[in-house]
């Protein structure tokens, strides 16, 4: 016997969590864009999407966020940290790739110092993931050793029932268990079987890719120029990525008062590596694309023991010129030995 959440109990469930002090965020389609946003009722949710266009990363590492308010005085500086508020949030209906993305980024934000802006949000969030029963042509989780029902980064996993009426509920962490308490009376006991997971083909050989990238000779390979020739150098793939985490620090204000902000930045942009001298060590798009792939499948794993890709496929799905990680890694897989 396992616990089941029925779809027709979803409104009770949201109400119970809200009364317990949680904000509930779920996939929604608003202003012609699918993303995670706060919901008050199940009718607001767009749970039938394979994947939202935006990732949940946005709610932990926003595109722009204030860090410090400052005022420069004659012999002193006043500064005030602007940490995010303590707010308990449930993310309901997350896909396994997006949940994995958070777990992939945790070591990065906690490595040389603890980024409170990230962890304050992480520690107050409960991730309720729904395993995928559908996928599209761009999904590639199985190629990066994840799966449509991966539990990485999730606190609760819901497995859709075969009959489509609800989900099998499994708590995966203390936070997940605690989240099920307010809805204990809403859940039912049942023995229904789960629907089969989405079938996502393996699109490249990640082991071979990692081996090739780790070979110093690959760095100067002509491959990079050939594969990236049509890249237009926008930041779409990096900004839609559930694991890309690069940022820039900017001060906004006048000479004496202002706000220091943390803004997303992208290795696709020439400005990303431009030196004050005017020298740019990555002065072509091919060197920038190489950096993106190397970072994800070579450097990141060297430092944190995991690849910085959870296989969501957004980089290709939304690329203006139909490029992306899949094509590049397929091409590396197919390189002659």
């Amino acid at each position, binding site marked *: 016997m396992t616990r089941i959440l029925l779809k027709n109990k979803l409104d009770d469930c949201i109400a119970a969590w809200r009364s317990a002090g949680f904000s509930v965020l779920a996939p929604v389609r608003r202003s*012609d*864009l699918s993303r995670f946003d706060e919901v008050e009722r199940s009718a607001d949710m767009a749970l039938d999407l394979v994947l939202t266009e935006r990732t949940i990363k946005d709610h932990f590492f926003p*595109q722009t966020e204030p860090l410090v308010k400052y005022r420069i005085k004659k012999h002193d500086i006043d500064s005030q940290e602007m940490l995010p508020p303590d707010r308990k949030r449930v993310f309901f209906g997350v896909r396994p790739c997006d949940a994995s993305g958070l777990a992939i980024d945790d070591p990065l934000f906690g490595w040389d110092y603890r980024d409170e802006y990230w962890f304050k949000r992480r520690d107050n969030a409960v991730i309720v993931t729904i395993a995928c029963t559908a996928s599209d042509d761009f999904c590639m989780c199985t190629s990066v050793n994840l799966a449509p029902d991966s539990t990485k980064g999730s606190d609760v996993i819901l497995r859709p029932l075969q009959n489509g009426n609800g989900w099998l509920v499994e708590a995966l962490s203390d936070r997940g268990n605690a989240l099920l308490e307010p809805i204990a009376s809403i859940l039912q006991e049942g023995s229904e079987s789960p629907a089969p997971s989405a079938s996502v083909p393996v699109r490249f050989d990640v082991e071979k890719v990692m081996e090739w990238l780790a070979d110093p000779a690959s760095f100067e390979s002509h491959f990079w120029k050939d594969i990236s020739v049509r890249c*237009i150098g*926008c*930041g779409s793939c990096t900004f839609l990525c559930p694991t890309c985490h690069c940022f*820039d620090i900017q001060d906004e204000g006048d000479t004496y008062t202002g706000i220091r902000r943390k*803004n997303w930045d992208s290795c696709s942009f020439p400005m990303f590596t431009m030196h004050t001298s005017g020298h740019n060590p990555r002065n072509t798009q091919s060197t920038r694309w190489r950096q993106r792939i190397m970072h994800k499948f070579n450097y990141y794993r060297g430092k944190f023991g995991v690849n910085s890709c959870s296989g969501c496929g957004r980089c290709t799905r939304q690329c203006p010129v*139909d*490029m992306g990680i899949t094509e590049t890694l397929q091409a590396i897989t197919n390189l002659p030995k």
Partner: protein
Amino acid sequence: MGIQEQYISEAAGLLSSGAVKLVIGYSEGSTTDRRRPVFVRTPAEAERLMLDGACVANLSTYLLSEGLLSDGKSVAVFLKPDGIRSINILAAEAQLNPEQLVIFGFDIQNGQARPLQGRKISDFTPIVEAARAAGLSPELQGEAERLEHISAAERFEYWKEQFSKCIKCYACRQVCPMCYCRRCIVDVNQPQWVNTSSHTLGNFEWNIVRAFHLAGRCVACGGCDRSCPVNIPLRLINHRMAKEVLDAFDYYAGESTDQKPVLATFRPDDPETFIL
């Protein structure tokens, strides 16, 4: 012989005779309904070229890739009427020499690619005239008119909502053949002229700067709109600017290679007293 076979064979011929060093066209994409830009350098590679109703990207963007045309050699490129207008503007703005281009012109009608006669930019004058006669983006008329007729406050709310989605990935800029500045104003950072933050103010700044720089230059290829990963209806802004320029100055962007840029020209007999 269909248009695809005809153009492949001609492209292969141009490459083998050395008449062009490169063909910029379309090839198979990652799904059956996608076509992606392809750069063909040998006759054998020409077999990868495809041409059908899914070939929508305006490939003129790639012509200003750094160094591509600076050796004086010729390049062939697949272009729809919007792309042909882009070439006219880029030539008028002294960004390229259209004599270096062999144009495989095509149009999409009822989902099918149809050939356009001619290979030189001057051959397509009647095509551009026909485009002007057909009116500005008829497919946008409904939504454009709805926005015209709501109150200024409602319109502001609409754009605030849309721009709030912007993440400043600059896909709209990078895909646009008219955005060829080697260093965009938003990247000028000593000092930082435009906020890099993608908050409401920063997003308005960027989107308005972009729209103004495209007034009288946008050819409505829709590349920005299609590329926007957060679905901002950028074509509606461009359309409004094109309409303004057409109504005020009887100016249709990209008519010829010597058409004077509308915002960089004046006439001594201009009725506005502030000009002279």
